[in-house]
């Protein structure tokens, strides 16, 4: 590969990023694939005391203790029983220099798409189940709508739990 090719290649990729998409309550969501650590089948989850309802508990992921978040509960969607396609997508979040590994329960994984981040549309305010603060934007691929999530905000368990722990410690 010549020098020019490499330059061209990296230029082309800087505009588009790869996203892993998954289904949740009939809609398709996407997370940046570079944040995905792995995809994991359903396994025993141990509940954590004093945790909000959407945190199902923790799981042993190759020796690490990883919290598992139920995305349906997080978005106040109706519950669904664990099925054959239920998977846990393990992602890495970054907040204020701290990084955490967190698993999120989804209905099923779908595809990997290259998405041009410059062409994202903002989420229209139509009162959907997903609050707009967790959404980076909408993208259309093959006539499907993809909701791209900002996982750092969505999975920021630190802030969401701080008041809880204080009240219980008091």
């Amino acid at each position, binding site marked *: 590969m010549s020098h020019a090719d490499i330059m061209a290649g990296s230029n082309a990729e800087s505009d588009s990023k790869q996203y892993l998409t998954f289904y949740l309550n009939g809609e398709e969501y996407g997370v940046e694939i570079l944040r995905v650590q792995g995809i994991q089948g359903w*396994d*025993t989850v*141990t*509940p*954590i*005391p*004093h*945790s909000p*309802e959407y945190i199902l*508990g*923790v*799981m*042993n992921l190759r*020796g*690490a*203790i*990883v*919290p598992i978040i139920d995305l349906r509960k997080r978005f106040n969607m109706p519950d669904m029983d664990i099925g054959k396609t239920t998977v846990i997508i393990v992602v890495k979040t970054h907040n204020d220099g701290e990084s*955490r*590994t*967190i698993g999120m329960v989804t209905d099923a994984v779908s595809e990997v798409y290259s998405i041009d981040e410059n062409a994202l549309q903002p989420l229209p305010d139509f009162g959907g189940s997903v609050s707009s603060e967790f959404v980076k934007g909408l993208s259309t691929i093959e006539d499907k709508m993809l909701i791209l999530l900002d996982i750092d905000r969505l999975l920021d*368990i*630190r802030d969401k*739990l*701080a008041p809880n*722990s204080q009240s*219980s*410690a008091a």
Partner: protein
Amino acid sequence: MSDDMDMSEIHDIFYEESYEGLDVMESGLLGLGIGQPDLEIVNNIFRAAHSIKGGAATFGFLPISKFTHGVETLLDQVRAQERIVSEDVIEVLLESVDCIRRMLDMFKAGNVPDEASSIELKQRIDTILALPSGGAMKAASNGEVSEPAELKQWTIQFSPSVDILKTGNEPLRIFNELRALGELKIVSDISKLPDIRTVEADSCYTQWILILDTDAERKRIEEVFDWVSDQADIIIECKESDITNSQAQTTPIAAALELPSSEAESAVAVGASSSNGKNSSSTKESGSIRVSIDKIDALLNLVGELVITQSMLARHADGAVAGSEAQGLKDGLLVLERHTRELQESAMQIRMLPIGASFSRFKRLVRDLSQKTGKKVELKLSGENTELDKTVLEKMSDPLVHLVRNSLDHGIEKPEDRLAAGKPETGTLHLSAYHEGGNIVIQVDDDGAGLNRQRILAKAIEKGIVSPSEQLSDDQINNLIFQAGFSTAEAVSDLSGRGVGMDVVRRNINDLGGRIEVSSREGKGSRFKIRLPLTLAILDGQLVKLGSDVYIFSLLSIVETVLVSPGEVRKVVGNGNVYRLRDDYIPVVRLRDAFKLRCKDSIKTYLERDGELLVVVESDGQRIGLFVDELLDQQQVVIKSLEENYKPVAGLAGATILGDGNVAMIIDVPSLIKTLDIAAITSKIEDFAA
């Protein structure tokens, strides 16, 4: 040393070695007899001081090197038997050790110590140095220190190893240093130079013969080669120059050095290797290496994983396979299990240090305190070789200091009181460490007056810790000293009563997962017994079941487990429940409720049973009962952090991975009790009991 080490890492090594050196000096000084010092000890002290000075000068910690220089000079006189070791000398040297330590602390914290802090001590050293050497044994023959030394010619054969340049040592620098001592002639020997095609640019093939005319002592010349003495063959010979110098006069010089030249070289070599950071021990050849704690913890973590994987394999093999093949597999797994256990034990052993190093610090403390208080105390140590996790050891240091201070301050009586009570004038303080039932026990015994229970009770009533109507057992009264805001000292001295009470001691020990007990006999003495877990990374756990989940208590926190029938639990006005455990009412809580668990199985299953399992735990002297569904095994578990990917949870110390791969939560009793707001319940119990 590798090239990629930045300066701060090198500084850290310097600090660490200097602290070690100071410890060597301190313990040496404390063991040094008055009058007739053991020369071996003196040499150890001197070498430690010398390394500190050398290191400090090299890395630019000039206040330290300047100050240590005076100390070194004094030590040198002692070493050469020119100065008699008096109580004064030891005192000054001990204070110097403290002073150097303070300076190191300041540098380490990023400050530069000011001259004022050491000036007074420096003057005292200078005063001693200025004194005539106090009846030195060989004052007459030891001309080399007091009289101006004569010009002598030295021949030095300097044959460095080929790799000397790679270690960052530059012969040229050494030559320049020698030049500063006097007239230097250098003869190079390049006979070892290989063929030009095989020459490596960073290897040194040259050897030198150096001829030095100087009035400096041999020691000064040897110092120049300190840093390279283990990388070069160095032969230093004194050729009597034509200046009038008789054979008779050189002999005492060698004698004054106390070392024939070959020994002198080996002594220098030891000093040099420790200052090069290659050897962790500053005095003994222990063959150890310095490894960062992080690496060891990573290793321990991996070993923990291995143990889990191994037990998982064993479980699967149990049911899964049959037939002749299976036997081989099972045998193999048994061997694996044994090896894994051994590996785990050896890996844990890395973090373990003998408690002796920590104990020997108390020699100093006891010496200082007994001088200050005018009490006569003998410190006895036993079990110094008992090993303890490094972190536990470090965190135990303050509580132990406090206990020892307390025993000296409040426990052991003044000599005249002791005589009046028919006891020997000198009190005994006994520090011991030993293993007991998988725990480490550290015990502080004194043969002093014992706890004065009337005074403790009176004080507790005065402070409102107990009500006057309460009937307390002797044991309960003894334990009052651990209550917050309690200080028994009639007169607050500078020894104790500095705001850190026994409550802090107990909290520190509880935080480590340990317990402290006190027992005392009036007039005979008291005993503080501290029970500690072997290590912090691994916990001896009692597994219990709550609903479908497994929770783990530290065995150390459990007092007992009792079977309670539903009728024995009584409701107290408000919301608390209590159970009468022998003479005490203790608050009881359902652990499920405490953790607000969303258990899927019906609560009835355990209410319907005839008896309930109550685990009685204790922290900070507070006992509470926790109902659990079932008691499971006891096993060792590896503690893992919940914070790494989640956040700290009140009432939990962390989590662990069980043999089946599932996660189980580890209960932190002290923080659980805080979470439950037991104080509110306890106050109701008092109404109830009364």
